[in-house]
């Protein structure tokens, strides 16, 4: 830890460059979080047996957005959404103009990320309190999650990237394993009929499933720390979306085939129920849900901490502070208060849905808007000139 601290202190002024595997793990582990527990229900509620198609389409939309952010990043090398926005919207003579215009952009992301951090921490607390630690107060589960996330946020981006890199296999392998193992109780007629596909329902399912993919907007922040002109970095970002896409599709197929969409409606945490009905062959672990939840804590932690980090970093940049650590300290009680705000779990889901709409629209709209303006104003073309895109 001492080495890391020293290194990150050393790197403080120079911006740290993420490796391709770090980019991938940052995106993947931010996306996979609380959504994985509710996704089978939320998408099949709308899209019925075709829920997995909604998930695939949702993934493709996320891939498209990622591609767009990468394009933006290629134009504005070493700049994140805020600094890119400043140079797109500002003029060379009046630098403050860019700052003024870019402020709403940062503000939207800020609000959204704050809501998300609090919402994810609260959902985590709700799951733990309902399913595992029944007697533990919600305040404790939410508080500890936020506090652990806070501890990580006090460090620099490099630490965050490494934590994510280490935790990624711990998150992915068990979730994939569950998805595959639960096919033993699957009844595949429940996935039919495939056609005629009810496109309106599938589209509604996409909107419902958007929450599952939230987290890729982190890229708008880390795009300042990647070498997006390198092809493998761009590919890593795409992989970062493709992994959750695979995991989610498998989980939704498994959930639909095991329960049927009509039963999924009744399950608060369908993936957890799926885990409960899964038997590991050989009876090595009879109740794997405790193991699964243990792993899932890591998944939630990476989501919470990464988004928390993003908020603090953005605010630091906006206010021109020395280190985002100070923002994190101020933010912690606010986040906790916000997490405790929803009166019950159903309201929480409602708020999270709204928050994810903000996130979806802003992560789609803002990069697109900036990209279009940049194209019109022919900004950042020079960097692009030397690089085949």
């Amino acid at each position, binding site marked *: 830890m001492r080495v890391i601290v020293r290194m990150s202190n050393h790197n403080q002024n120079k911006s740290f460059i993420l490796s391709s595997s770090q980019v991938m793990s940052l995106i993947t582990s931010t996306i996979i979080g609380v959504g994985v527990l509710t996704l089978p229900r939320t998408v099949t509620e709308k899209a019925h047996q075709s829920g997995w198609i909604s998930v695939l389409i949702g993934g493709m939309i996320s891939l498209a957005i990622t591609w767009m952010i990468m394009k933006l990043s290629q134009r504005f090398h070493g700049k994140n959404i805020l600094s890119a926005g400043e140079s797109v919207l500002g003029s060379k003579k009046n630098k403050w103009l860019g700052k003024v215009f870019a402020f709403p952009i940062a503000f939207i992301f800020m609000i959204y990320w704050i809501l998300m951090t609090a919402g994810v921490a609260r959902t985590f607390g709700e799951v733990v309190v309902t399913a595992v*630690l*029944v007697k533990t107060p919600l305040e404790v589960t939410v508080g500890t999650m936020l506090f652990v996330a806070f501890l990580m946020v006090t460090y620099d981006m490099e630490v965050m990237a490494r934590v994510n890199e280490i935790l990624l296999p711990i998150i992915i392998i068990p979730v994939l394993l569950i998805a595959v193992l639960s096919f033993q109780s699957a009844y595949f007629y429940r996935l*039919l009929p495939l056609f005629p596909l009810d496109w309106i329902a599938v589209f509604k399912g996409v909107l419902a499933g958007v929450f599952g993919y939230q987290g890729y907007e982190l890229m708008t922040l880390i795009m300042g720390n990647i070498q997006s002109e390198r092809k493998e970095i761009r590919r890593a970002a795409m992989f970062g979306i493709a992994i959750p896409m695979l995991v989610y599709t498998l989980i939704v197929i498994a959930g639909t085939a095991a*329960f049927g969409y*009509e039963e999924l409606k009744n399950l608060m945490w369908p993936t957890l129920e799926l885990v*409960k009905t899964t038997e590991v062959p050989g009876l090595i672990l009879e109740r794997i849900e405790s193991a699964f939840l243990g792993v899932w804590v890591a998944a939630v932690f990476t989501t919470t901490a990464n988004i928390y980090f993003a908020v603090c970093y953005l605010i630091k940049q906006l206010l021109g502070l020395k280190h985002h650590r100070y923002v994190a300290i101020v933010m912690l009680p606010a986040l906790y208060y916000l997490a405790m705000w929803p009166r019950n779990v159903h309201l929480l889901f409602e708020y999270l849905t709204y928050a994810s709409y903000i996130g979806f629209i802003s992560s789609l709209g803002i990069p697109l808007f900036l990209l279009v303006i940049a194209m019109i104003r022919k900004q950042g073309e020079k960097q692009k000139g030397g690089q085949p895109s």
Partner: protein
Amino acid sequence: MKEALRGRFLILYLLVVVVLTGCWDQQEIEERTSIVALALDKSTRDDGLIRLSAQIPIPKKVAGSGTNSGGAGGKEAVKIISSTGFTVSGAANNLQKRLNQELFYGHTRVIAISEDLAKEGIGPILDSLRRVPQIRRLLWPVVVKGEALTLLQSNPKLEQIPILYLTDLLHNNAALEIIPDITLGRFYSDMSDSTVGPVMNIIEAKGDEMVWDGLAVFKLDKMIGQLNPKEVYSFLQIKEEKSGGTVYVPCHPNQPEKMVVLKPKTIVTKKDFKKAGDHLALNITIRIEGDVVETQCGIPLSKQENITNIERAIANDMKNRAEQLIKRLQTEMHQDVLAFATLLRATHPQWWDPKTWESQEFPKLDVNVDYRVHIRRTGMEAM
């Protein structure tokens, strides 16, 4: 300066570690009362209450737990305790009042529901079970003939904890494809599914015996009828594509008392919907391969002709049984227990109307069952 600061951080972390190890939910295993089976009855006083009974193992009496005083098996190893309430959780709460330790449902293996209660509707009961995270989806729900409490009191003496006898019976016979594998999770799914009539195993407690007695058929959450073990045989073959166990038929129509017994080994069921004009038809083709395990007829099985005759006789018998079952479901119960609608919705969604299926189309459905039996082996005997 910086080193000192780091030292302070270290102390902070240590404090955090101390705080984080606290566990609100820690509970010693001997401080809880584990339930292995629940039984739900209507209150005997006819006051509309629910009576909840629980079978609780007594750890000291179960062999292998230190003091070797137990092990004789039998009633001493478990305690049965009942309580009433307006709702299931109310009854459980009243039960808790009479126990010294906290109730723990995580080990529940069987939920027994009395026939009377099942006929009134089990929706409210299942609702309370669904909300409790400790109740697992892999436990066995059963309908008990008469009082559900009798099942908990019954003691087949082969297991120390009597209800484990029932779970093994259900589990192993489900693996042998003789009894349908109906867990609570599956019952939930079938109940939510609009294309299938849910079923639940029926168990009768006769003194020290626990006897499986077919399937209870549910409509929504109410039990509306029963399939006897013979009908379940066809049910398993048509719906679950499981062999159903051995079958015996007369070798020859002239000698109805002389039987030949077939043990099916593999079964392939194919269902195919056809529409002729306005009329919907379902063709079921079931191919069974099996071994002859017993004959009383004294005819040489080495002759192909005899084998063909037996195959035909068995196929006819199975076909009759299946048709009787389907007829009964169509005319008497009006309940699509065999999940034809699941298939119809999956393969021909345009022909499936959720509103009229059960009342109009299903009773009129033209079902043709066709069995093809192949005898592959005749055991260790050459003839």
